[in-house]
């Protein structure tokens, strides 16, 4: 009898207890983060992380995400898939009895009665309500400037004033980042960019460490709560780059070969085309919303639905292409560009015949990239969500009635 009681307490009870415990967590940690898992994480981001991530079958299908949500998901999904811990600092300032900062991790036990897949979705959804671009600094650190440090799985964070972030899918051989990101309002389809964002948007108050802006990597769980300079891999190198040559410096440091002139043109054309196609989505989001509410937007709605930063970025891409044209023209290189690339080049900048990246801006309206470039040149393209479709796309400089009377923020 005594042995049986001993057996029960010594073996059965702890087993049941540990079983219950492991069931309670969102997922069980089977491994710990180390250099090998960091390397596998980078490989996974390079291969599996893409703009359709939330459209595929699985626990994350159709989740609607903003930019910071997408950044955290990149790390979360890999951790969940491989039984690795996912830990962030409680961004609401929670502290334990000893005054130490609380963390939020996959050991949370709020969704005990759900299936494993549902728990992963519920926890991520919960995180979306807690995290933001402002919580990212405490969960990450600024990295050194080399291809090992700025690589797949890192992310680029802006100054708090711009509150935006992009994930890095990979860095090309020519030193250009392929970025995957979301924006507001939150949606499931992610956006892509193949270029460095403008410094005016990324570092509006200068390139300082205090702004937290720049390329950053996620902290491992044991580094959460540490001072950032104590985190392995922490580097101040990025803050030694001069802002006026930020993109060039990074490209130079991260490239393993030169970028040919034709590649530069293709990249800049892609940036304009992608930016304009993405613009269709968020302009229509705004028009649909205004159509529904039929009133002036408040500050938060205006912030969600206006597009001044994105329009500045698109204009910046257009100016980059124009600059490339001028440089190649001055150096007499234009004739050396292949005919298909040159044709696209001339269509976008001069309205030559062709159908490169036509923009279906509504069910019955199409415009060319050149018409958009022309709208920007005239200063007619409107970022104001109160404006009409035509004004938003620079087809007219007439403000809508709502745009005339409603406040801008």
């Amino acid at each position, binding site marked *: 009898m005594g042995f049986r009681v001993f057996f029960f307490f010594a073996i059965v009870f702890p087993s049941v207890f540990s079983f219950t415990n492991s069931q309670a967590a969102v997922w069980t940690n089977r491994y710990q983060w180390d250099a090998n898992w960091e390397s596998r994480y980078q490989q996974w981001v390079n291969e599996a992380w893409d703009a359709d991530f939330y459209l595929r079958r699985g626990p994350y299908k159709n989740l609607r995400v903003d930019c910071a949500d997408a950044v955290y998901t990149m790390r979360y999904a890999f951790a969940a898939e491989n039984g690795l811990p996912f830990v962030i600092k409680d961004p609401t300032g929670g502290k334990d009895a000893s005054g130490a900062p609380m963390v939020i991790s996959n050991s949370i036990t709020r969704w005990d009665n759900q299936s494993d897949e549902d728990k992963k979705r519920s926890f991520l959804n*919960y995180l979306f309500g807690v995290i933001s671009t*402002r919580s990212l600094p405490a969960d990450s650190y600024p990295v050194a400037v080399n291809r090992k440090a700025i690589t797949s799985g890192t992310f680029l964070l802006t100054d708090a*004033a711009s509150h935006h972030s992009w994930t890095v899918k990979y860095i090309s051989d020519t030193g250009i980042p392929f970025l995957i990101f979301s924006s507001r309002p939150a949606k499931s389809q992610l956006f892509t960019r193949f270029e460095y964002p403008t410094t005016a948007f990324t570092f509006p108050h200068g390139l300082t460490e205090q702004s937290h802006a720049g390329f950053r990597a996620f902290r491992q769980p044991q580094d959460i709560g540490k001072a*950032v300079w104590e985190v392995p891999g922490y580097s101040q190198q990025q803050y030694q780059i001069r802002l006026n040559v930020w993109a060039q*410096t990074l*490209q130079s440091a991260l490239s393993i070969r*030169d970028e040919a002139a034709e590649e530069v043109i293709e990249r800049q054309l892609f940036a304009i085309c992608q930016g304009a196609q993405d613009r269709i989505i968020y302009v229509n989001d705004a028009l649909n919303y205004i159509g529904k509410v039929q009133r002036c937007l408040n500050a938060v709605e205006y912030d969600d639905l206006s597009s001044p930063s994105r329009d500045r970025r698109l204009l910046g891409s257009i100016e980059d292409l124009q600059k490339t044209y001028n440089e190649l023209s001055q150096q007499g290189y234009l004739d050396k560009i292949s005919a298909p690339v040159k044709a696209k080049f001339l269509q976008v900048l001069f309205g030559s015949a062709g159908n490169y990246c036509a923009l279906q801006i509504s069910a019955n309206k199409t415009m060319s990239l050149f018409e958009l470039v022309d709208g920007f040149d005239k200063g007619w393209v409107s970022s104001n969500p109160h404006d009409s479709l035509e004004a938003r796309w620079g087809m007219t400089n007439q403000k809508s009635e709502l745009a005339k009377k409603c406040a801008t923020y």
Partner: protein
Amino acid sequence: MSKKRNQPFFYIAVIVVIGLAGILFLKKESATADSATTTSPQAPDIILSPTFTETTPQPPPQNPSAAEAVQNKPAPIFSAADWDVVMKCVEASDFKKYFSNGFLELNQWINSDSRGQKTVDEVLIHYVNGGVPYRLRVSPSQRGEAKEPPRLFKVDTDGLPTPIDLPTQWKNMSDNSILSMIRQTYPVGRTIESGRWNIPGEMTMDYTLENQQITQFQMQWMAAGKAAAIACDQAAQKIKCQCN
């Protein structure tokens, strides 16, 4: 005897060998660093800042940033006696009664550093209502630049926050609430510190400020239909709090 005679030469030889080895080592390190900064031999001629090096210096920064500053809490500037004034003011204005009914309206909260810069990066207000702890997180904005919406969290029994909807009156950013005041008044950024004040009425307020200094602050709220306010100022080493 001969060994003794040769000792000085032996030591000199050892020093010379160590010195040469050191020079060779430093040269090698230097060459490694030079080659590391140019990852691509054909990279365009981009000018790096003179101090840009591959080897990362790791001293603690002069100004720990917001996320890190939590670990280095500044010593409280206002003494317990000063807080007595604040507490009496709070009690007198029936703050508890108002708060137990629901909402706190805190219209203005100013802090500035010795250079006169007014900077708040984020404001976290911790309060308890009906025995349930809540946290309100508000990020200020600068000259109408992009904003993040304020977020309200209920703290659950596991100590972790759960996001909940903001009360309707807080959603309207054009009103005269704490949210719009904080968001419209203060620029973002800069190095900040964090701390916590305990205020009667089961309320604590976390503050976030610049340069480890609160030199002044003001709080205003509505209490039982009346406006109440506290203004504290640290001038010439003397702290004054006025209760209105």
